[in-house]
Every structure is written in C-alpha cells, then in structure tokens.
C-alpha cells in the first residue's frame, strides 16, 4: 500500500506543481472574483455630468410632462442615500426651436452636440398626437454623437411614450388615473417548496429566481466536468512520458501494474479534489455575495464528492489505458475521441435534463454509468424530489462499472506499458482487455 501512496504522491505533485495548473485552476476563480470586485469598484466611477437634451416638440403638448418626468427622476433616482453620492447623471431637458425643423436648424443643433453644449436633441413629430383615425404615427428622432448611452435613450423613449399615452387618453376624454389603476401589472414570485426541518418545525419556502435554479445545477455539473477533464489529460501525457522515458520498466520492477494504476488514480482524485476545494471556496464567496449559498445543501455536496471521486476513477482509468496503449500523443488523439465523446455527452443534453429532471428520459439517462455522475448530480441540484433510491442505485452502478473499467484498463495498462511501436487498433485493445 505504501507503494500506491508513493506513486499517488508523486503523481499529485507532478500535476499540481506545474505552472499550467496554477494558472488554469487557481487563477480562474481569483479572476472571476476579481471581476466582481472590479465591477463593484467601477460602479462609483460612472459619468455623472448633466446630460442636456434639447426637445423639439412638434405636438406642443408633450414637452411639459417630459420636463416634469425629468425633474422627478432627477429628484429621486440619481442619488444613492446609503453611499451618500450621486450614482447617475442628471437629465436636463431644454425646449428647442419651434417645429418643424429645417435641415439648417438640425445642422445647427448637431453642431451644438459636437461642441458638447448639449448631449442630444430629440424631434417629436406633430403626427404623434394626430387625432385622425388613420394617421400612422411617425417615429421620434433622437440625435446624438454617442448613441451608446442606452440608459438615456431608453428613458427618453419611455417618457415620451408615457406622456403621449396620457395625453391621448385626455384627448379621448378618459381619466388617465383610471387607466393607470387598471393597468397595474400583476407580479409573481417563484418559490421552492415548504419542508419539515429536523427539529419538526415547518420551514417556509423561499423565493428563488428562475435564473438561479438553472445556474446552480449547471455550475455543479460543469465543475465536475472540468475537474475530470483537467486531470485526465495530464495523466495520459504522464503515462506516455513514462513509456517514452522507459520509466515504466522501473515502475514495473517495483510495483505491480494494479498498484501503479491505483496510485495514479488516487493522485488524480487528490488533484481534482484540490481543484474543487479551490472552486468551492471561490464559489462560496461568490454565492454568499449573491445570497444563494443555501442552494448548496450539505447532502448534495456529499453526493457530489462521491460521484466526483468515482468519475475521476472511471475516466482516469480509461485515459490511463489509452496512454499506456500509445507511444506518443498524436497516436493517443484518435483513441481519445470515443472517450471524450462519452465525457462530453452530458454537456450536450444537460439542458433537456435540467428542464425536466424527473422525466423518464432524464431518469433512465442518469442511470447509465459513464454519464451518471454528471447527470445525476445535475438532476439532484435541479430538483429536490429526485427519489432517494436513484442516486444510490446510480452510485452502485457506477461503482460496478468503475471496477470493471479499472480492471480492463489495468490489463491494457500492463501490456501497453511495455509495448513499443505503432498504436494498437481498437480491436487489439479489446483483445488486450479481455484476454489479459
């Protein structure tokens, strides 16, 4: 057993102490966190200079309500009382020259924008308030040098629309207040379910956003996928190095193939757990920041770890066998494709499974061993009512499949480790695996 640990420790060190590992694994969550922090810091640095907008009102009825809307916004929406500072620009509306504008006048206003005297100018066509039945309203024209300041554009459009609607109601002799009351939007919260806590008390359902209920299962599955793929590839490279450098012979002279393989797989599990620890810490900080750390219950975490370890063993064994069977990376590529496809399969169907985690399709699929770890954990994260027997049965099936893979891969590993020359065909690989 000591030999297994020696190999595991070497494998772990060889993988973790490379620059690529540090960069790809450790820096990623740090960068992600950094992004959030940077966003937070930049929030206070937005442009809060007044935005002066000239309104050329062809209807001569909308300017006044627009002015009122701007004043109201400037009074209430641009100042953050908590942080005691302005967080948005003030919009200052200025009455423009009488409509309709000539091209001369438009050029004049454009020049004023260019001289930064004003930020934009808006032309509201008279037809907007036309009482004629068949009048097709013309569009409002918004002119500005910088059309990327979407916030202002949206506000102008919305405010003109509001004002126009109110005015049209007045013209039609309807009290706008009545319409306002009638059109109060209906809101709906999405909640998860009530449950009974261990203490016997009823635990209330909590508000959950739909995006979040997608985000967490997906993240959990991606994390597993990533930690498997990040460890499998270097392990394959490692075996090829051992073959090329004839280290394999020395290893075989000291430990039996099963011990070597086990050592490597355990080292690999260690690496993947390191990755997960890093990501979980990063993820937890992010999760608490957004306030959904409760979305990761401990039982889910426990299942995750179990499935994770089995997934690394299972795929690790396959990749080890491939590495042992080939003499260089190029050869390995072609044999890797089928293994990769199985590994990527959950990535291709996760959305369907996530939408209906309890359907027969999802259930059956998640009980097929090579894809079980990822899909089962996806379903469990998506729905709390996955029957309890399913993860258990899934785990047993994966375990059986895993031992089978480790056993077969062990045979390929033993023969392949010494074989030189061209890569074996799939048929030959199967022969190695079955006959030993």
């Amino acid at each position: 057993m000591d030999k297994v640990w020696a190999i595991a420790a070497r494998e772990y060190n060889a993988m973790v102490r490379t620059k690529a590992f540090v960069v790809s694994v450790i820096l990623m969550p740090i960068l992600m966190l950094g992004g959030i922090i940077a966003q937070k810091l930049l929030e206070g640095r937005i442009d809060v200079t007044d935005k002066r907008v000239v309104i050329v009102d062809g209807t001569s009825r909308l300017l006044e309500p627009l002015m009122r809307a701007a004043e109201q916004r400037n009074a209430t929406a641009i100042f953050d009382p908590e942080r005691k500072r302005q967080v948005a620009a003030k919009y200052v509306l200025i009455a423009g020259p009488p409509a309709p504008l000539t091209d001369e006048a438009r050029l004049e206003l454009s020049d004023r924008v260019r001289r930064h005297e004003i930020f934009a100018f808006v032309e509201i066509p008279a037809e907007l308030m036309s009482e004629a039945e068949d009048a097709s309203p013309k569009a409002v024209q918004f002119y500005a040098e910088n059309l990327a300041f979407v916030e202002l554009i949206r506000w102008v459009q919305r405010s003109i629309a509001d004002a126009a609607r109110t005015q049209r109601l007045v013209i039609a002799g309807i009290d706008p207040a009545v319409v306002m009351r009638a059109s109060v939007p209906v809101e709906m919260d999405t909640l998860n379910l009530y449950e009974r806590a261990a203490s016997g008390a009823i635990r209330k359902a909590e508000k959950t956003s739909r995006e979040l209920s997608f985000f967490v299962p997906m993240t959990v599955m991606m994390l597993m996928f990533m930690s498997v793929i990040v460890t499998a590839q270097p392990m394959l490279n490692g075996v090829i190095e051992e073959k090329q450098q004839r280290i394999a012979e020395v290893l075989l002279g000291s430990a039996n193939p099963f011990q070597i393989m086990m050592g490597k797989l355990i080292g690999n599990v260690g690496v993947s757990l390191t990755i997960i620890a890093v990501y979980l810490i990063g993820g937890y900080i992010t999760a608490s920041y957004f306030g959904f750390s409760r979305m990761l219950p401990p039982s889910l975490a426990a299942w995750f770890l179990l499935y994770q370890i089995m997934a690394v063993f299972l795929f690790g064994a396959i990749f080890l066998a491939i590495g042992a069977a080939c003499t260089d990376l190029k050869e390995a590529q072609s044999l890797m494709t089928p293994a990769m496809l199985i590994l990527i399969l959950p990535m291709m169907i996760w959305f369907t499974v996530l939408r209906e985690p309890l359907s027969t399709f999802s259930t059956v699929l998640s009980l097929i061993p090579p894809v079980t770890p990822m899909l089962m954990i996806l379903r469990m994260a998506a729905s709390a009512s996955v029957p309890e027997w399913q993860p258990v049965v899934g785990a047993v099936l994966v375990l059986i499949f895993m031992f089978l893979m480790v056993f077969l891969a062990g045979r390929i590993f033993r023969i392949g480790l010494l074989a030189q020359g061209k890569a074996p065909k799939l048929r030959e690989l199967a022969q190695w695996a079955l006959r030993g």
Partner: protein
Amino acid sequence: MTYAVELSGVTKSFGRQIAVDQLDLAVPSGAVYGFIGPNGSGKTTTLRMILRILYPDSGLVRVLGLEHGDAADDRVGYLPEERGLYKKMRVRETIQFYARLKGVRDCRREMDEWLERLDATPWADKKIEALSKGMSQKVQFIAAVIARPELLILDEPFSGLDPVNMEVLKDAILAMRQRGTTVIFSTHDMDVAERMCDTIFMIYRGRKVLDGTLEAIQARYGDDTIRVRTAAINGALDGLPGVARVNNYGRYQELRIEPGADPHAILQALVARTRVEQFEITRPSLHDIFIRIAGPAGHEHETEARRG
C-alpha cells in the same frame, strides 16, 4: 554454488521474430556478469525476462530462488538504458521516490553517501532535465541501488559516459559486489567487460554463443593471434602464408593464424618483407572474439533486427 539467476530453455518471440532462442544461463550469486552482443541480439529482452516484465514463451526463469516471482521484487534493482527518470523531478526527490517504491521509507543517509561518492552532491537539488547525460546516468544508478538490492541489473550503464565518469561508475559497481550484490550488466564496451566481469555471456541472434570466464573463453580460441607492429604502412601483411585474417588497429595489427600454421614461419616471412618492431603471440581479445562472431566478415551477416 548458489545461483542468483538461472534460465533454462528460455524462448521468447515477438510475432514471427524469435528474440531469444532456447537460452540457458546461470549467474552465480555475488558475481559480476557481463552481457555482450550486438544491437538487437536479444540482450534487453533477456534482461527484461530476468526482471519478469516480460514472460518467456517457454522455458524456466528462476530469480533469487523464485521460479514464479513477480516483476515487483524489492530485492532487484534495475537501470534501464539511458532513460528512466522523470524530467521534471529534482534529483533528491527522484531517488527518494524510487527508494520508497522499493519499500525503503528513509533513505537520506544512504542517498547522501551515494551522492558524495559519485561526486553528485553539487547538483542534488537540480531538476533532472537540467542534468547532463553523465549526471543523469549517475542519478539513475543511485536510484537503482538505493534500496540495497541483492540483484542489480544494469542495461548499458556506461553508454555515453566520459572516461572519468566511467571510472567512477565502475568503482561503484565493484563496491556493490563487495556488499555481496550480484550484478548483471550489458555493454558494448569490450574493454570494460574484460576488466570488470567475472563471467562474460554473449548472445547473438537470440542464441548464446559465449558463456564463461574470460580465461575460459580465450582458451577456447587458443593462442591463435599474433600482434605485430611493423615499419611498413600498408600491404606488407597481405597474402602472408598461414594467416587467416588481418585486423588493422592502426598502430598495430592482429593476425589470426590458420590452424596448424607455424608462427615462426610467419615471422620469417614477415621479416623478409619489412622491418618488424613488435611480434607477440597472444590470445584473442574479447573485442576480436566479438568481431569474429558478429562481424560482417563472420560466417553470417548481422541483420539489424530491432529487438532490443
């Protein structure tokens, strides 16, 4: 006499190629045993079968008393040809790793001794990839002996070494014998084999062609060699009566005489042709014997069968 390694009737083939054919071999305990033979003659295959990382198709392999042992034997140390080290690991880490694989948990004292003895202490903390060939060969050697094996198998331990390092490594191997370790090594260097080996074993095309002490081997060929140095540069030795073959070494020439020919007559013929500076009747060198068996002028041409 006890034997560390015994092979009897061992045959191994890869596909249609027979790498080792009906091989018998007995390596006495505590001996230094040299394997010689051209490339592709089956040396490495034989070594690998002794290591049990290859199994013979037929025949018996007994290593350290065990007939059906495991490749993973902590009593056997192995140095593969030229490579066998992880490039990214440091020297001490590597040695410790190999020691632990052989079941030795703490090897620090032993390791420091070996590093010191092989003049390797200054680069003990470097990565393997930063080492020269000679340096990594030394590390490889330490890794093979760190667990105090009873049987040490070295595949081409001297290839690529300069004379100084070669001497250092030769002394280290002899030191292992002092401890009672049986050493089997393969080499291309006939000089080394002549000077170091108690017993020499030559394999050619998968078959044993020589096996025994140097004296015994040379005796088999008898005093059939004359070493001469003459004033003439070329041609003086051509067509001498009673001479079967001339080996030109540059500064001197070796003549193999035909069975029953009289060396005295040859000397007389030679004196008649040129000025003789040296004339010595001797046994053939191992080098000469090797060439006689495996050289292009031998009865068979060597085929470049790449069988390791």
